[in-house]
């Protein structure tokens, strides 16, 4: 297990707390509650119980037989976080944080969301404990993820569309931080990724480490050994850190993070912070950030709303610099193709986020060849994305010159920044 962060919340040069003073006491309070809860058997038992009896853990680890055959014989196993209640790994973290919020006596929950999976998971955990919940979501994502917006509303949450900036995840996070600054005394902010100020990156990793802990035991049971490589998609990085955390100390296990290459790494329209960003400060921590030469935060792009984020968790930045993490990427088109491929070969429709991991897994499996063992984290299921995928495929199929309606492919961004 990794021993980082240090007591200042640093992973090497990354992490820390770059937030308005108003929030620092709340972060201190949260850090104390998290540290106490980690060593508290009653808390851990309650969380384990919720994860088993409510969230549906453990999730299975299973062979992707036809994928393995296609790849030339490398054994590929899939960790099925898509089978979690609410459809993604996000529920692991929100149940943990809602328990913490209750422990701290907070009366209200706020969250930000991109694809909506974290929003749905937060709304679910808040509903379970009867806490009022507000979810900040970029206005563009509200359009792209209409189904998840409705799910959150069904669960009793209020969805607040954010019109500022690029109207996506980063702006939702800005607005959630502002809302937290304003209501910090009675409100807990559930950050959905291993991003944000200390202790969030470490705390969210700890709540997601259940993925890696299960997967490690399962792969040893199923295959009799550790995998040669573990692949996960990276937006902020919570599913990746969750599964990687159990293998960080095994140098024989290659850790592969797959970022969103969007319309191509050279196009400037992507979400590949580790690949194309440089160290900076965004949303309370120092990490790799997509930014202009002047230090303004750049807009990220991905067909997947959950990967459409110009930052990345500080621990992933650290692991990259240390040479422990291999970073690769998949384009929108490759992710779309991988989504269809997994659907047809394995009977699993992954989330567009997870489809990025699948896209990168194929070439990696071919490289490993027969005798190789590759683990892929299927972080979420694709139900939320099917309408968007349908539109994207229709747009691709449209004859050249007769473009599909612009709105069909992607709603126009507000030009003013």
């Amino acid at each position, binding site marked *: 297990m990794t021993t980082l962060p240090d007591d*200042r919340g640093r992973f090497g040069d990354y992490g*820390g*707390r*770059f*937030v*308005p*003073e*108003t*929030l*620092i*006491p*709340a972060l201190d309070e949260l850090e104390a509650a998290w540290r106490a809860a980690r060593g508290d058997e009653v808390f851990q038992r309650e969380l384990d119980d919720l994860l088993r009896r409510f969230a549906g853990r453990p999730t299975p680890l299973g062979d992707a037989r036809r994928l393995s055959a296609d790849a030339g014989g490398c054994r590929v196993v899939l960790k099925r976080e898509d089978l979690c209640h609410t459809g993604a790994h996000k529920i692991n973290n929100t149940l943990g944080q809602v328990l913490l919020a209750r422990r701290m006596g907070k009366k209200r929950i706020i969250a930000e969301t991109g694809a909506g999976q974290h929003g749905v998971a937060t709304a679910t955990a808040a509903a379970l404990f009867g806490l009022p919940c507000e979810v900040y979501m970029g206005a563009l994502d509200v359009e792209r993820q209409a189904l998840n917006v409705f799910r959150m509303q069904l669960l009793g949450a209020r969805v607040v569309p954010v019109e*500022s*900036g690029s109207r996506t995840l*980063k*702006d939702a996070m*800005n607005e959630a*931080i*502002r809302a937290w*600054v*304003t*209501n*910090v*005394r009675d409100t807990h902010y559930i950050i959905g990724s291993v991003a944000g100020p200390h202790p969030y990156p470490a705390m969210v990793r700890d709540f997601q480490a259940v993925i890696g802990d299960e997967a490690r035991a399962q792969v040893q049971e199923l295959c009799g050994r550790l995998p040669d490589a573990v692949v996960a998609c990276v937006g902020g990085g919570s599913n990746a850190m969750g599964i990687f955390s159990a293998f960080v100390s095994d140098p024989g296990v290659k850790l592969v993070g797959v970022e969103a290459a969007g319309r191509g790494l050279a196009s400037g329209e992507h979400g590949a912070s580790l690949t194309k960003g440089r160290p*900076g*400060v*965004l*949303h*309370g921590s120092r990490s790799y*950030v997509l*930014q202009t*030469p*002047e*230090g*303004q*935060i750049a807009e990220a792009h991905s067909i997947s709303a959950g990967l459409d984020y110009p930052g990345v968790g500080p621990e992933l930045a650290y692991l990259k610099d240390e040479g422990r993490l291999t970073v690769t990427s998949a384009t929108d088109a490759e992710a779309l193709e991988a989504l269809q491929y997994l659907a047809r070969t394995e009977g699993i429709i992954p989330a567009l986020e997870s489809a990025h991991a699948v896209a990168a897994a194929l070439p990696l499996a071919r490289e490993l060849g027969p005798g190789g063992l590759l683990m892929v984290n299927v972080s979420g299921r694709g139900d939320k994305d099917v309408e968007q995928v349908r539109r994207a495929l229709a747009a691709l199929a449209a004859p050249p010159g007769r473009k599909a309606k612009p709105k069909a492919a992607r709603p126009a961004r507000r030009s*003013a*920044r």
Partner: protein
Amino acid sequence: MSPATHPVAARDDRIASMFAAARDRGEAALVTYLMAGDPDLATAKAAAVACADGGTDLLEIGMPFSDPIADGPTLQRAAERALASGTTVASALEVAAHVRARSQVRLALMGYLNPVLSYGLERFFADAARSGVDAVILPDVPPEEAGELRRFADAAGVKTVFLLAPTSTEARRRAAAEVASGFLYFVSVTGVTGARRALPEDLAMRVAEVRAASPVPVVVGFGVSTPAQAHEVARLADGVVVGSALVARLAEPGSRAARAERVRRFVRSLKRAMLR
């Protein structure tokens, strides 16, 4: 750095002497805020000079950032306008130098860390000093993250101002007092920048707590938008900050000269409210 190295009345300390002069006049110091490059660089320069003419004691020049987490809608929009007009950290330094060539008003640069990191910390503080800047305020840098930044600031002779909030504990007030240079900035409300109808009821008590812990003067900002509110705060603190209300006035339509005149008049009305 110990508080003792920042004697309030040091002769060469321009910020300290400003507060001392205000105190001698029976006033609180008036601190105003404008965003560099909002809506364009020339207008921002004219407005900044108008602030000085109107009687501002210390002018904060905002450096726009794409993701201003401590700001409410008024300053968010100002940052968007400034970025749309091509404003950079260098433009903010240019506004400072422009004002400094015409006035001895004290100058602070205020913004978020990332553009400053991109500019380069050492170069930023050196250029700030060269442009006549007295202090730098970065609301997303709490004292515990400020080590390297303070080294370069000290080397350049630029003050680093830290913020305290209503949520700050006694321990944090002490921590801020230890690193305070120039002045401490007390955020009057639990919230982001922007006008409020009323100030918090316990403001007097909280400001008193901070002043008791602080070796340097304490200014109060966030939510102060009218001369009446400014007067109320002037009786409690060493200085009063007005930002969003001024930015909103500047943003109303009109010629460059008309906007600057509007700023000057508003600043003058605030200045009159500083008398305790």
